[in-house]
């Protein structure tokens, strides 16, 4: 389903080149739940950005459903991105929209009917327990509520893949467990999940495939791994 082939990504910091990823290759099968782990700066976020075509690789190719992600024409990029749901590390909720509108936005851009939007957003709000906060703006929500709103937005349009970049970074242990349980449930329903995290408790609870990055390189790729940093 997803294939990273010999990916190297070098950022230019002034005249100094910084290697974020070096010769990274791995495959993701449909309905897999993969955790990408590593310390800060290991290259986890870069990997997700490359899959979302937010960044271009310095060398190598990324395939999503047999199409080279970085050869998609700019005018078609939005259609490709609709296949992917993203939970951003910094939430990236639209500040001028309410919780309801933030979640509904993804369905609106896809041209869903008002009726569909109303029904689906209500369901997802219920799942993430934000029904009573639906008219609040992001700045009025707590960190955990924002995180859940971001997850709801990633789920709403039933994407084939969900990329979750440190989705529990700002949550207390109770909400962390809830979010992971939610992602696992979504995965069981058939959605592929790629989770970037450095929270070892999550990984150990999940007991799913774990790819460990260090200094931009894959140092381990294990099925049902337990993990220590």
């Amino acid at each position: 389903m997803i294939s990273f082939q010999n990916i190297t990504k070098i950022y230019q910091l002034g005249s100094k080149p910084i290697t974020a990823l070096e010769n990274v290759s791995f495959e993701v099968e449909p309905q897999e739940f993969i955790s990408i782990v590593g310390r800060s700066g290991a290259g986890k976020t870069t990997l997700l950005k490359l899959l979302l075509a937010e960044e271009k690789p310095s060398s190598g190719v990324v395939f999503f459903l047999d199409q080279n992600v970085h050869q998609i024409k700019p005018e078609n990029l939005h259609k490709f991105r609709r296949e992917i749901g993203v939970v951003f590390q910094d939430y990236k909720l639209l500040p001028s929209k309410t919780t309801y509108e933030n979640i509904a936005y993804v369905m609106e851009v896809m041209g869903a009917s008002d009726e569909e939007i109303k029904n689906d957003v209500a369901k997802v709000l219920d799942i993430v327990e934000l029904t009573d906060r639906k008219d609040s703006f992001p700045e009025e929500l707590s960190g955990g509520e924002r995180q859940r709103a971001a997850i709801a937005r990633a789920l709403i349009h039933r994407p084939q893949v969900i990329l979750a970049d440190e989705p529990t970074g700002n949550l207390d242990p109770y909400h962390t467990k809830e979010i992971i349980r939610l992602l696992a449930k979504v995965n069981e329903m058939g959605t592929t999940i790629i989770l970037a995290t450095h929270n070892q408790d999550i990984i150990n609870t999940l007991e799913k495939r774990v790819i460990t990055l260090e200094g931009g390189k894959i140092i381990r790729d294990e099925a049902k791994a337990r993990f220590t940093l």
Partner: protein
Amino acid sequence: MISATFKRIIKSGWKSFRRNGGLSIATIFIMVMTISLVTSLFLSQKTSDFLITSLEEKVDMAVYFTEEPTNEEILTIQEELAGLPEVKKLEYISKEEALAKFVERHQGEAVIMESLEEVGGNPLLSSINIKAWEASQYAAISAFLDTASFRPLIAKVDYSQKKPAIEKLFSLTSNINTTGIVLSIILAIVAILIAFNTVRIAIYNSKEEIETMRLVGASNRFIRGPFLVQGMISGILAVLITFLVFSVAVWFLSPKIDIIIPGLGLSSYFFSNFLVILLLQLAAGVGLGVMASFLAVRKYLKA
């Protein structure tokens, strides 16, 4: 689906406009200033045209004849002069009419009247008063008179005496026009740049929001639409405010301006050109709002 999307874009634009109240008010304020400037330039053009025309109306040249020409000669001369494209109006004044006007003008001035009696008879010459369309055209008419077929009948042309005054007027009107055009262009550019920058700053604040919209799969059209709607709403409101302010200002100030510049009729000009002014303002306001939004958003959609 297209109409549903269009409806969503309008709704989203209107919501953002309301929710970003402070920024929207600032944008409208700057646009009101810009549209006011454009409207002022339009009205000042009318005022300067009026001033130039009234000054030019006061200038003419006269051709004096050696002796009273025959009716046939007058007709030929008038025909030849009327054939010139520079000539706007001709008026023949016979010796008798000239004397009658002279007497009327100097009634009560004993010295002048006594001098006239002493000279005896009618010392004045018959003449033709010529009015050109523009002050700059008198030189061409004068040149024509120098080579005209009826030249032997001409005693004098008063162009040479009036030439300095005419040239001064010509230079003045030409300066007013040039200065007006240059000033208008500079002010319009400054105003447009300020309005453009205000909209750009407003959209710059939404830079990250635009980036997020792209990442969650919104098309460029869906992202751009609400910003264009916001620009349009700002433009329309700015036009309405400016039009209201100008209507009230012209209504109250017009009588006072008419005292300073009699016959200008700014109020009747403004209200009789109601549609033109409104369209001009709409073009400036809405065009500016939409164009500025389009260009500012485009920058963040390119990446």
